[in-house]
């Protein structure tokens, strides 16, 4: 879709992710350099562009892969864009934007002391790295596993690790935050999340199609019932509009189009999960069935990084900022 060759390979490598040992899975994607796709080779990344990164995010969503694949790539992109090394992300990691009240910075003789408490960071793990983006302080701070203090860890509805980031350390890797980086980061993250949601949506559609073709009731396959066929159609409509939204965010990149994709993604996620479960019947809500691996992700991701409501409001502010329909038209058509 964004890179068809990569799509095929990624599905091959990530197939069966839900049963895989996560360490083994991580090693195999590291061997392919995938966590650093979208980051220039000159900065220690794997090269490739945003389209490649989106394709990997979609593949991770489609295969319900329990590893921080694109999340690590996003964190690496922040580090590379800030001129910092990528070492802290060897076992994966995340980038977090932390507001003022959660972080205190103190200059000391030995360096910059960081005292922070950032609640509910998804993919925060004892072995992983963290990239702190601090808008008010104007800094980017890279932290390795050794820098993290005691933390309490839990999981979200998709079984992804969530931890409270607790820090009191001297940061060694610090850079100034380029003011243009923040909106670019927000846009990139929104688009990557949307692509991951799209991947999960695609998987819901294919699993549901298989099910309604195979399962017979009333002496015929479920899909022969018009109500069922129309439910399937509604799922594929969500897939279509989300695909278009992400493609537009990629081709006509801006914070506006990225957040538009994110708003569409959040709305499609719920609709698709609902119909997928409805058409799977009781079997779909068992632990044994694979459907929950993708639907639980859709539920978790709807409000992850930013909430869908936030994305809608942000797009709304953007189009109400101008006069007449100038901004609305520019956002949707690129016609100024």
């Amino acid at each position: 879709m964004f890179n068809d060759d990569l799509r095929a390979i990624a599905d091959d490598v990530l197939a069966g992710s839900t049963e895989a040992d996560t360490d083994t899975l991580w090693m195999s994607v590291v061997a392919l350099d995938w966590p650093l796709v979208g980051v220039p080779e000159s900065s220690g990344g794997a090269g490739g562009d945003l389209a490649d990164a989106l394709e990997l995010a979609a593949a991770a969503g489609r295969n319900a892969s329990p590893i921080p694949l694109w999340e690590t790539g996003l964190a690496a992109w922040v580090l590379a864009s800030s001129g910092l090394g990528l070492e802290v992300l060897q076992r994966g990691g995340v980038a977090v934007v932390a507001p003022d009240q959660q972080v205190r910075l103190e200059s000391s003789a030995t360096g910059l002391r960081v005292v922070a408490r950032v609640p509910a960071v998804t993919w925060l793990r004892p072995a992983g790295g963290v990239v702190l983006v601090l808008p008010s302080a104007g800094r980017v701070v890279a932290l390795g596993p050794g820098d993290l203090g005691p933390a309490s860890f839990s999981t979200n509805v998709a079984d992804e690790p969530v931890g409270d980031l607790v820090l009191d350390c001297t940061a060694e890797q610090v850079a100034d935050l380029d003011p243009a980086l923040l909106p670019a980061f927000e846009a990139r993250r929104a688009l990557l999340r949307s692509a991951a949601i799209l991947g999960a949506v695609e998987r819901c559609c294919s699993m549901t199609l298989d099910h309604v073709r195979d399962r017979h009731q009333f002496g015929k396959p479920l899909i022969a019932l018009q109500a069922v066929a129309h439910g399937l159609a509604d799922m594929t409509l969500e897939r279509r509009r989300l695909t278009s939204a992400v493609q537009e965010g990629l081709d006509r990149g801006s914070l506006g189009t990225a957040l538009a994709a994110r708003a569409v993604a959040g709305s499609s996620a719920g609709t698709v999960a609902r119909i997928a479960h409805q058409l799977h019947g009781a079997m779909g809500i068992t632990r044994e069935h694979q459907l929950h691996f993708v639907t639980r992700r859709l539920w978790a991701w709807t409000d992850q990084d930013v909430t869908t409501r936030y994305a809608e409001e942000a797009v709304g502010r953007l189009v109400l900022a101008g006069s007449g329909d100038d901004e609305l038209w520019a956002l949707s058509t690129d016609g100024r």
Partner: protein
Amino acid sequence: MQQGLRAEIRAVVAAADFEARCDSWMRGFDPAFSRKIAEHGWIGMTWPVRNGGGGRSNEERLVVTEELLRAGAPVAAHWTADRQIGPSVLRHGTDDLREEFLPAIMRAEVVVCLGLSETEAGSDLAAVRTRAVQVEGGWEITGAKIWTTAAHVATHAYVLARTGPPESRHDGLTEFLVDIGTPGLSVRPIRDLVGDHHFNEMILESAFVPDRRVLGAVGNGWTQVTEQLAFERGGVERYLSTYPLLVAAAEAGRRSPDRAVTERIGALAARLVSLRRMSLELARAIDRGEAPTRLAAELKLLGTLFEKDVVEVARYAFDVCGAEPGDLALLDDGLITIPSGSIRGGASEIMRTVIARQEASA
């Protein structure tokens, strides 16, 4: 994209005297405005130069059509001919038919109405019973068409008629282009729910049509009309019909800021980005010579759902933020548009069936 072309269209729109309204491509009938559009070469603009067309891309045509509907401009007089009959004549017509129709359509001299539906053939179009019988030099058509928008102001009728045996279904259909003044052809008005007149019944009683007015091959009507529907369903009018109302709702949200209204406008704007992208994909597919029937069905279905939600959000925004003079009239305009949106050009149920069938066979 296409800033020069956009500026040109906006200048023409700004100089014209009309009131922006919803559904302007169906309800805004103004031959003088259509002639103005024709003078700028914006009718038949994608047709090949060797056929007298503008030789421009469907991506450029998208810019023209979206700018016109953005303004709520009265484009109904040329819309159908430009959108689907011209392209159909181009694809399937003889050289004579092309010479007869294409330049005239481009001058906005042709207003076409679509004789597709019948009382017993609505969503089930293959049940068409209107018959065409071969006579010397042509055909005699007998039957009755219904929901024929603009037949009372049209110069020509497109008629889908059965030339095969009564039970031939998809195989025995043929397309014709009939002069509206043909003896035996009569038009009776059907008022819509607010009393407006755009629908008609069109009766054909042994109406003679010369051979040269057969569009395409005899018996190939079903294949041709299915392609034509990709043009009919896949245009910007499937999601921009209520655009003037969306702009009014946004204005309300700007006058009197409210978080929930901002969110709702934002959610609609996000959907609009996606719909517009689908339109662009469709235009590109047509430029590649494809007939993207599935994408057209998807755009139509998602587009009419969007238009419906625009009306709901506008109602909400006018309540929370207050309405200016004219806003509520525009809301009514939108409200009466909504029921037809998900029926005309193929009912939503048919769209879903088309989509599900293609998904299952993909």
